[in-house]
């Protein structure tokens, strides 16, 4: 049954692909019917006006990211599509449990491998593979962070296949970014589509900053009410600077740079107009290898000398804890279901993509034979770089990857290309919404009381027709993600 509304009247889903809002037959999914009717009541021209309004608001609010390659730090807005992505209350309840389970297990995993390493003794995952990770820091072994939490903030990337099942694509346990767009996008939706937000019964997201501040203070070395927590940024020319300042502002914390901090008697202090002031918790948005030149990069002028000593002594809490990268390594990813089973004695609630680990002989042989069908990823690259999209690649690119995989198998994993789900997305040039592929990054906070999942997340969308790459550096944009309140029974 085609929808009666004018905006989505000509909307077509892609064959063999799950669409987030519409069924294969082109009808609105029942859970979203009211919201889709409210949005679709606009004509194409009316919606175009709304979309333009939203873009101007984002620019005026300075919701921008800096482009690395430009010396002068040009700022751009993260392209935004006003058509929201929606998730039903029921689907969300499942994701929430699965995400909490996964983060809990990864937390236990990190604690173990930086501690006794029982998982290697019990041969539940191969030690050589884990310890060969470039993000494994043997010098941190034996340090247990104050408050016992390592993954204070996780961003878990999910994708949805043609069967409608959400699967984990990647874990981000170091400095996951993007949450500011989740909050800003919602502000825009409420401003431009107020009656739609209302009709859809959307769960609020604006409590995130206060939950984050609570989580950070809960693991402070001193009483939470006495705690001086700060946000540490590399500075205004960092691509995510907007977010750093956004989080500091919405949490009411000070935003500091490394040069504002110094360590004395293994305690961290901040330089102020009234002299030094002690710092207890640091939400760091700097790469861990630039945290402390004493530990990581002696040649680096960046960082705060001695900060790792202060951390190891429990005098300051670093969020996230240094060393987490080993658990979100793409080479460790295939073993996360085993990690869940080993530590929690439960079956994983979230599925993930079947993955071939090129370090293993059998897997490698299969990968080399099937390169044109597979997506090959370098384990230490992110942002969609260092990747072979087999089905779209030229013969030369495939040969290039054959050579690379054979030369350094540990560096690569492979998966089948997933038909990422689509969502109606506004296409300016055609004046109508068309199906574009999306992913989802929900955020999990973790304090003394255990994990909490933000009801929402960052939906990234590949704006280019036919594209599977959602990264902002490569033509991706974002959407507001509406998690609907559970139906009253």
């Amino acid at each position, binding site marked *: 049954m085609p929808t009666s509304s004018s905006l989505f009247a000509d909307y077509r889903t892609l064959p063999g692909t799950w669409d987030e809002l519409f069924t294969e037959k082109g009808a609105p999914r029942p859970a979203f019917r009211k919201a889709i009717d409210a949005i679709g009541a606009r004509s194409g021209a009316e919606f175009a006006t709304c979309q333009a309004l939203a873009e101007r608001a984002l*620019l*005026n*609010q*300075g919701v921008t990211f800096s482009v690395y390659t430009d010396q002068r730090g040009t700022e751009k807005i993260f392209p935004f599509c006003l058509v929201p992505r929606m998730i039903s209350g029921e689907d969300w309840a499942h994701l929430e449990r699965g995400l909490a389970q996964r983060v809990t297990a990864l937390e236990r995993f990190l604690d173990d491998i930086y501690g006794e390493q029982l998982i290697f003794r019990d041969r539940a995952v191969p030690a050589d593979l884990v310890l060969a990770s470039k993000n494994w820091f043997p010098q941190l072994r034996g340090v247990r962070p104050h408050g016992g939490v390592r993954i204070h903030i996780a961003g878990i990337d999910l994708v949805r296949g043609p069967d409608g099942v959400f699967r984990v694509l990647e874990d981000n346990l170091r400095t996951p970014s993007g949450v500011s767009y989740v909050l800003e996008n919602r502000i825009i939706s409420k401003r431009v589509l107020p009656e739609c937000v209302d009709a859809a019964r959307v769960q609020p997201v604006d409590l995130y900053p206060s939950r984050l501040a609570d989580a950070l203070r809960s693991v402070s070395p001193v009483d939470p009410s006495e705690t001086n927590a700060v*946000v540490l940024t590399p*500075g*205004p020319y960092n691509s995510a600077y*907007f977010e750093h*300042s*956004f989080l*500091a*502002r919405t949490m009411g*914390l*000070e*935003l*500091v*740079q490394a*040069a*504002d901090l110094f360590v004395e008697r293994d305690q961290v202090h*901040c*330089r*102020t*107009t*009234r*002299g030094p002031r002690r710092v207890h918790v640091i939400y760091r948005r700097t790469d861990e290898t630039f945290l402390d030149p004493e530990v990581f990069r002696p040649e680096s002028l960046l960082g705060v000398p001695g900060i790792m000593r202060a951390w190891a002594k429990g005098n300051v809490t670093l969020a996230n804890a240094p060393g987490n990268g080993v658990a979100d390594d793409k080479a460790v990813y295939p073993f996360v279901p085993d990690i869940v089973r080993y530590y929690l004695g439960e079956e994983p609630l979230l599925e993930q993509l079947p993955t071939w680990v090129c370090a293993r002989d059998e897997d490698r042989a299969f990968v080399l034979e099937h390169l044109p069908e597979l997506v090959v990823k370098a384990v230490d690259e992110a942002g969609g770089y260092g990747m072979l999209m087999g089905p779209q690649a030229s013969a030369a690119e495939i040969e290039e990857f054959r050579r690379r995989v054979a030369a350094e198998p540990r560096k690569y994993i492979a998966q089948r290309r997933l038909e990422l789900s689509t969502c109606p997305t506004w296409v300016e040039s055609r004046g109508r919404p068309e199906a574009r592929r999306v992913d989802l990054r929900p955020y999990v906070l973790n304090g003394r009381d255990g994990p909490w999942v933000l009801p929402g997340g960052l939906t990234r969308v590949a704006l280019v027709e036919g594209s599977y790459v959602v990264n902002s550096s490569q033509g991706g944009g974002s959407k507001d993600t509406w998690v609907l309140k559970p139906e009253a029974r």
Partner: protein
Amino acid sequence: MISRVADHCFWLGRYLERAESTARVLGVTRNLALDAGLNPRHVWLPVIIVAGEEHRFQARLGAGAADDGERVQEYLTWEDDNPCSIQRSLAAARDNARSIREVVSLETWEALNALYLWAGSPRARAEWRDDRHSFYRRIRTSAQSLQGIVRGTMLHDDALHFIFLGVLLERAGQTARILDVHHHAFRAIGAHDVIETALWLALLRACSGFEPFMKLHRGRVSPDVVARFLVFEPLFPRSVRFSLRAAAARLELIRPPADAELPGRETYERLRGLAMWVGSRQKDFDTAGLHEVLTHVVDETSEIAGVMGRELLGDAGAVATQAQAQ
């Protein structure tokens, strides 16, 4: 507060005030040039000198360029290589705000960002070309509104005090420079009375002092009375003395003088000293000594900014880069 953040606040205030002041001076001078029938050079060269840009301007555009009001306005409004141009001042104010977005209120940031984006847009260029008066007025009122937004939406804590400290020190220096340079130029022109009165009225307008002056002095315009008004008037918010006293009061909020242990002692003593010194000159004032008073004010405010940089703003650190102080 964090020293680096205080530094950004201070410079945010200074650049904002500078953009406003430059727009006001250009607008008024343009009016004057139309009215007074003076040699354009006598009108426009002082404006370049007030901005401290005489050398760079002449090196770039030639000694004769100050005859051309359009080129002077172009240079002081748009020139990328001129750190005092309106566009550069707005960009610098906005850059400072961008570095401390968690400190300034959202409303402040949005208004400043919108002003900056507008100034860089073709719409602003078109307005400058087609309706110069509106352009300058818009810059002026936007900058003034921004100060109101700061006052009305931010906590009145150290961040706000540092912003206004920057505004007030910049303002004291600007008023002193504008008065000094024009006073000197007026004498050089040697115009007859009617023209001279027009010049002094323009000067008052350049300092937003026309109406306040008229309210207090009922239309009696003489060089001596105008100069006294701009230097000493305790009720006029742009007089040198008012600005310095208000700046000292801000600093007292940031650093209570009773607490001798706090950093910033020399800054405070010199700022307060300067304010008192200016006050003490009122009694035997005559316009012959004006230049000496104003030169001291300009030099000492710039020195005080330097001392403050060392004592309070962490200039030894990585941020001592804002060398555009006049």
